[in-house]
Every structure is written in C-alpha cells, then in structure tokens.
C-alpha cells in the first residue's frame, strides 16, 4: 500500500513505517519561534531543565509580531529572547528582518523533504517547498529545542486536484479562499492537505506559499505540494541544504480527493468574522472600506507588492481610506525599493511600515476604529484580530485590496488589471 507525502516524510524522520493515525517521535530539521510564543517557550525550556539546544544552527527566533516594540511589556519579552539567543547561541532575526514565514524559507532553513516545527500556526507555509512544516505551541517548541524531536500523530491526507488556469486578475489567494469556503474552517482538521494539478504547477513559488500558508484556515496540519523545477530553482537560489523531493505514491491512500476546475474562478473575498465566510467579489463589491492592508506572511512578497503597484501606478488612494503596506522581509523591502515599487505605492498614498506582522495581528501599526471596515491581504478576519473587536475585516488578494484602496470600497480588481 502506497504512502502520501506526509506519511513518507514522517516515516523517514521517525525511522518507522508511519501510517495515518500512528503516533511517532520524529527528528526535527528546523525549529522556529516568534515573539508571541518564544518567551513562554524560554520559560518552559528552563523549567524542563534545558541546558543547551539540540543544534544551534537549527533553531531560530524571530521578532516580528510586535516589531519594533510599541510597549514596555513587549520590550521586556523581546529582551528575554535576545538574552536567550545570546546565551544558547541560537539564530535571532531581530526587528525589521521580516515575518518569520518569509525568513525561514528565504534564509534557506527549509528544503524539500525536511521536517520543521514553528511556534506559529502559519508554519504550514513551507509545505509549498515540499517540507512537512507545522505549527505548534510554546511547550512543544521548548521540547523541540531541547531534544530535536517531537511527537506527531501521522495525519490522513485530503488531496486537492486543481485543473485549469487561473483567469487574468485572479490569483492564488482567490483560489485558497475559495477552497477554504468550500471545505470550511474545520474541513481538514488533523489532516494534511496535498495541493496538486496544473493550476498549482503554473504558479510561481511565491504564489504557492500563499496557498500552503492558509492550510491551517481549513484546520489542516500541513499544506503540502510536490517539488518541481520551480521548487528546486527556488531552493538552490536560497539554500545550501541537501534535499530530496518527496512524492506521493500513485497508490497512496487518501481520506478524500477533491477536484476543481479553476478556469472560471472569480476574485474571492472572506467576510467578517470567519475565514470560511467566502463570497465572489460581485457579492461584496461596493462595501466602503476605511483601511486597506497589503503584507503579512500570506501576501507580503515581492510578487504581491508588484501586483499592487501595477494597479496603483499613477493613481491615488481614495481620500476616505488608508493604505498600509508591510513588506514581508527586509529583502523584499529592498527588492521593492530597487524595482521602484515602493515609490509607486508611496506616491499613490500608501504608508509603509516595518516588515513584520503588526497590522494583521492587532499589536500595532494600524488598529482600526469602532465600526470601520478593513480589507487586508492577511489570513484571518476574526473579530478583534486587528486589535478592535468592533471593526470588520475582509480578506482578499493584493490586487483586490489595491483596487479597493483606489475606490474606497471593495472593488473587482479585473477592472484595473490590464
């Protein structure tokens, strides 16, 4: 009986013949924490009697969620991370370096066939690189830092077969929003998702990250893709790790196989207050928005900023709305400066903030007011997510957000996409 990608990677890393629903203890290739989760992990590390991390080259801490610190309390937690990184010699990515899920792949810490945990739910992003990457909590992070191991329940897999080609003005964000709306917020709980098909193969690596990033929003543990020539080119450019692409066996057993034709897909928007509350653009177009956000681990990459700049070039945002742009990393920021993207966005009226998570996660950098509507390229629209439980958050692609910023209301980007 064949195996899925998840079963194969967990078999390799645990040394046993791992099948869905088995519990295994597996060796970790990389371990990451951010500033919302690392301080508690440091506390657990000390309580557990941790004396050293299993391999300092395989442990990173990223200060991205409230960076730079807006408050004294946050500063104390950041200091705790910096002190820990110094003492145990682990890698630290400090303020301005970027969002953890951009940095871990960009700095070459992940490659096909690796097993990665991150104390952040969107760690599933690296599944786009054919890595088994999943989010955990702080105590799991501490255990992983000490032992280089973690227990896993081997997930069953739902396979998404995506046929056809996305139409102009429709992007990978629209596709993943549509899939989440279809399977719902708990449709893949405890499971792995495998995304395959010509629609995936046609996407750039950057666009693929967006899809794997949101696997958690359907409850999935990982959002896996097969490695192809684009994956390998991307990995060779960013990493020196040895790697071995892992493919599902033709006779692998799936919990479910779902097939879709994407060729008629329209831009999609998730409405307040759940990510699976998804509508095609036509049903929400015209809703006024007071704030627009482009960035985050979902859609803050160079390609995303390029798409936004293409729509905003030579235009001004609506006077009754605000546009906040957070590049996903320092590298993305620099590349966007060199390409002239940042000038285009700033001339259109955007406020650029430090690469990081702030506006998405409600810590700072753009907390909306009572009753305001926000449209963002981020991955969550829960009530209160952006720091005010009386605001309303819509999610869309960078193109949809850019178009909405111009009109001051949710707008179909295809009207601007030439």
């Amino acid at each position, binding site marked *: 009986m064949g195996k899925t990608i998840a079963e194969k990677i967990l078999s390799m890393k645990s040394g046993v013949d791992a099948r869905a629903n088995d*519990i295994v*203890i597996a060796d970790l290739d990389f371990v990451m924490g951010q*500033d*919302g*989760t690392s*301080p*508690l992990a440091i*506390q*657990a590390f000390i*309580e*557990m*009697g941790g004396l050293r991390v299993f391999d300092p080259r395989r442990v990173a801490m990223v200060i991205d*969620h*409230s960076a730079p610190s807006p*408050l004294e*309390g*946050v500063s104390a*937690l950041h200091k705790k991370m910096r002190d820990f990184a110094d003492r145990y010699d682990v890698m630290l990515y400090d303020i301005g370096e970027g969002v953890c899920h951009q940095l871990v792949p960009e700095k070459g810490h992940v490659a096909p066939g690796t097993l990665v945990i991150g*104390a*952040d*739910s969107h*760690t599933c992003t690296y599944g786009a690189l054919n890595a088994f990457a999943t*989010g*955990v*909590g*702080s*105590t*799991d992070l*501490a*255990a992983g830092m*000490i*032992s280089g*191991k*973690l*227990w896993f*329940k081997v997930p069953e897999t739902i396979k998404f077969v995506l046929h056809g080609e996305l139409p102009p003005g429709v992007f990978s964000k629209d596709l993943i929003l549509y899939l989440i709306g279809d399977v719902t*917020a*708990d449709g893949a*709980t*405890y499971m792995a998702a495998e995304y395959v098909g010509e629609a995936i193969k046609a996407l750039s690596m950057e666009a693929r990250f967006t899809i794997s990033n949101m696997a*958690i929003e359907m*409850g999935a*543990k990982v959002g896996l893709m097969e490695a192809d020539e684009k994956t390998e080119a991307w990995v060779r450019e960013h990493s020196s790790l040895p790697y071995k692409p892992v493919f599902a066996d033709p006779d692998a057993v799936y919990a479910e196989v779902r097939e879709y034709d994407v060729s008629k897909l329209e831009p999609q928007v998730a409405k307040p207050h*759940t990510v699976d509350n998804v509508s095609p653009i036509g049903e929400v177009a015209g809703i006024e928005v007071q704030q627009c956000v482009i960035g985050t681990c979902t859609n803050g990459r160079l390609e995303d900023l390029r798409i936004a700049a293409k729509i905003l070039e030579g235009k001004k945002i609506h006077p009754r709305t605000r546009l906040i742009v957070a590049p996903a990393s320092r590298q993305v920021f620099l590349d966007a400066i060199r390409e002239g993207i940042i000038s285009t966005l700033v001339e259109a009226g955007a406020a650029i903030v430090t690469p990081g998570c702030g506006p998405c*996660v*409600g*810590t700072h950098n753009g907390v909306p007011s009572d009753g305001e509507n926000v449209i963002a390229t981020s991955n*969550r629209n*829960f*009530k*209160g*997510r952006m*720091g005010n*439980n009386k605001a309303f958050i819509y999610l869309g692609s960078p193109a949809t957000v850019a178009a909405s910023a111009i009109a001051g209301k949710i707008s179909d980007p295809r009207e601007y996409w030439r």
Partner: protein
Amino acid sequence: MNLRGKAHKFGDDVNTDYIISGRYKFKTLDMKELAKHVMEDLDPEFYSKLNKGDFIVAGKNFGCGSSREQAPLAIIHADISAVIAKSFARIFYRNAINTGLPLLECDTDLINPGDELEVDLGKGIVRNLTQNTDIQVKPLPPFMLKILSDGGLVEHFKKHGTFNLE
C-alpha cells in the same frame, strides 16, 4: 479525579483570538492578568461570571486559529477546570495536553447553559447533574493521557528527560 462546576456555553469555531486576544497576549507572561480577558471578545462579562471549577462548553472546532499557548493557559488561570466541546482544533489540542488542561470531546448539544456538570476524567464521563444524564466522552490516545497524567509536557520532560512513548 472528579471536576464539578457550571456550564458556560459557546458556539462553533471559537478561535484562540477570542480565547485571549492578541491585544493582550504579546504584553506579558502574567497568566493571572491574561485570565481576566479570557473570552472577552465573545462575552465581555465572562470572567466576572466565573466560579472556580466551571466549564467552558462549546461546539465544533474549539481553539482554531493561532498557536498561542496563552489560550489554554488563560483558561487554566481563570480556574476553569476543563473544556468540553464537539471537537478541537489540533494545535490547541496539543497545547492543552502539554499544559495540563483537560479536554473532553462529546455531544455538547446535551448540555444547556448553566447546567451543573460533574466530569469523571478516569472513566471519561460527563454527568449532567441538572438534567440527570450521563454523556460518553471520546477517549484520549494512551500517549496523550500519559503526558496529561504526568501534569503536562514540562513535567513529562522533567521526569523522563525526553519523550517517552513506553
């Protein structure tokens, strides 16, 4: 061990932002302080209504969203004795076991707000004392029970030095 308290009911898909908002969780490691804001975005009065030992009772997919371990910790420090739901999201589920918060998966339609409940963790039964009914709970896998009975993953590591599946 038997737990006893009143049921506080919530719906489906209660996410970790609702359990403890990002507005608070980045500022401090003081869990008693965070506990005061538990479930605030769903019910601003929730913390003030709690009595020691009460239960959170919810629908499906409890704890979805972010990986913040402050979510189970804020619940524990609000003196809530367990969460009873139709199903749990996986990161929350791991975090709860790792921090020693008991989770019970069962048909929560059989519980009304305010019902007096008694939970027998050993037998895996939720007794609804108000309605005089017993609700069967889906058992935990043995490995997770072991971590929970050690008092969470920190205690498990203190005891065994690493993961111990035996």
